[in-house]
């Protein structure tokens, strides 16, 4: 077996074990073919996501600190796939570093001194910065040329400016650069940083029907063939709810929503069968067939 070029500990987050399983599968496949090692953190917990920080900051910080403690069992920087988990873990590091009072409370909750130094990295950062775009480009086996991609960042990959530090908060290009390195074409569009309605999908789905409709309409206007995401909740709202959105707005979109790892893995030569395309609500297969990619 060939040696890995990079190694990471891996925090998939709850969605990647259920509604976003194709994000997990395609991440594993992509990293395997690029020879980047991923080892899952044993017994990781939910990061608390939006509900925890919305009403109980101390709980949110404690859950994230516990996960960072657990991640110490595995070597390598912590790779995070979900934009929300990434944002929560980075926020916890940021807040606990600058606020000794909160740090003391969290240490009490965990009954242990905090171990917070492990760098937390989103997959995008690993691919674009650690692995490198040139390397990524040379790993290409099947160019995605001719595929017009609308890169959708959503909220938490870049905001607020001082926390994720993945790219510029208001005019990021990291997703475009990553997918262009596999030959794809990216479109310029208005709604790539707007909110999809996030977790209102459970409590107030009407919010998602309105906000995600605007995003789909904007991508369609820009002439995109598909939308690329790096967040399971954005995916759920744009893909799983797309039929409902079409019914509510009276507009036909039929826009496949793909995880960035699915597209990258396809470009790197992973068989389409391993990338979970058939578990998506808006099937990308007709599009990918038309472009000669499957």
């Amino acid at each position, binding site marked *: 077996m060939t040696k890995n070029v990079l190694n990471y500990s891996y925090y998939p987050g*709850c*969605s990647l*074990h*259920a*509604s*976003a*399983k194709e994000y997990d599968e395609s991440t594993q496949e992509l990293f395997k073919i690029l020879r980047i090692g991923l080892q899952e953190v044993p*017994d*990781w*917990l*939910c990061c*608390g*996501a*939006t*509900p*925890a*920080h*919305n*009403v*109980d*900051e*101390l*709980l949110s910080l*404690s*859950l994230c600190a*516990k996960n960072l403690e657990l991640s110490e069992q595995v070597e390598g920087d912590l790779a995070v796939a979900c934009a929300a988990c990434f944002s929560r873990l980075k926020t916890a590091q940021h*807040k606990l570093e600058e*606020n000794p009072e909160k740090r003391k*409370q969290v240490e*009490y*909750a*965990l*009954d242990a001194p905090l171990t917070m130094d492990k760098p937390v990295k989103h997959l995008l950062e690993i691919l674009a910065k650690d692995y490198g775009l040139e390397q990524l480009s040379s790993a290409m086996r099947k160019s995605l040329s001719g595929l017009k991609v609308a890169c959708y960042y959503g*909220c*938490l990959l870049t*905001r*607020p*400016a001082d926390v994720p530090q993945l790219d510029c*908060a*208001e005019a990021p290009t990291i997703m475009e650069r990553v997918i262009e390195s596999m030959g794809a074409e990216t479109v310029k569009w208005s709604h790539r940083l*707007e*909110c999809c*309605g*996030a*977790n*209102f999908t*459970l*409590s*107030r*789905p009407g*919010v998602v029907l*309105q*906000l995600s409709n605007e995003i789909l309409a904007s991508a369609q206007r820009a002439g995109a063939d598909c939308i690329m995401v790096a967040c399971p909740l954005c995916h759920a709202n744009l893909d*799983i709810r797309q039929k409902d959105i079409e019914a509510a707005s009276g507009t036909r979109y039929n826009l496949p929503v793909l995880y960035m790892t699915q597209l990258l893995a396809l470009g790197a030569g992973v068989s389409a069968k391993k990338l979970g395309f*058939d*578990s*998506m*609500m808006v099937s990308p297969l007709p599009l990918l067939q038309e472009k000669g990619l499957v």
Partner: protein
Amino acid sequence: MLQNKNSKMTLSAETMNLDFVKKVEKLSGSSVRRCFQCGKCSAGCPMRTFMEHPPNRIVRLLQLGQYERVLAGRSIWYCASCETCSTRCPNKVDLAAIMDALRKCSWDAKGASKESLVQLANRLFLDNIRTYGRQYEMRLAAAFNLHSGKLLKDFMLGPKLLTKGKLKMFHQKNKNLQEIEKIFSRIEELRKKGEAP
């Protein structure tokens, strides 16, 4: 009313409810008083059409001592935590953190706000973590429908997601559930002792 153009409007500490403002500032780590009402936060807020008070007005109401109206309203529960406001504020007011602090105040004063569905979803989400360590979407959705009385919500979606393998009926249990329970109970302990908000 202003008597003439030279008279000044002054606010006393009592009218301002300065204690509450200070509480929010401590919880959020952000100034409330620094806001000068430019409105950039509301201009970029994706949720403003769902709110009775857009974000800049929430801050103004706090500055004017009207916090009870804020806590009772639905606006704070309709914030999506997208962080656009905090990113764009020219005065470094961290409005998203202020919203978290306000939700905590409203949440702790049980029943303060009539927006019950968002709060119900939050409560079930946190209960799930305490019981299972991780989020199980199917359990969460089923519990939400049961507790909200919306039994048929997404009725057509469930079976489709199941056949696509996106919802799991059964799952592995975390081995560290006792440790998780201890985190929750130690936080409760700290609060009882008055050592954490």
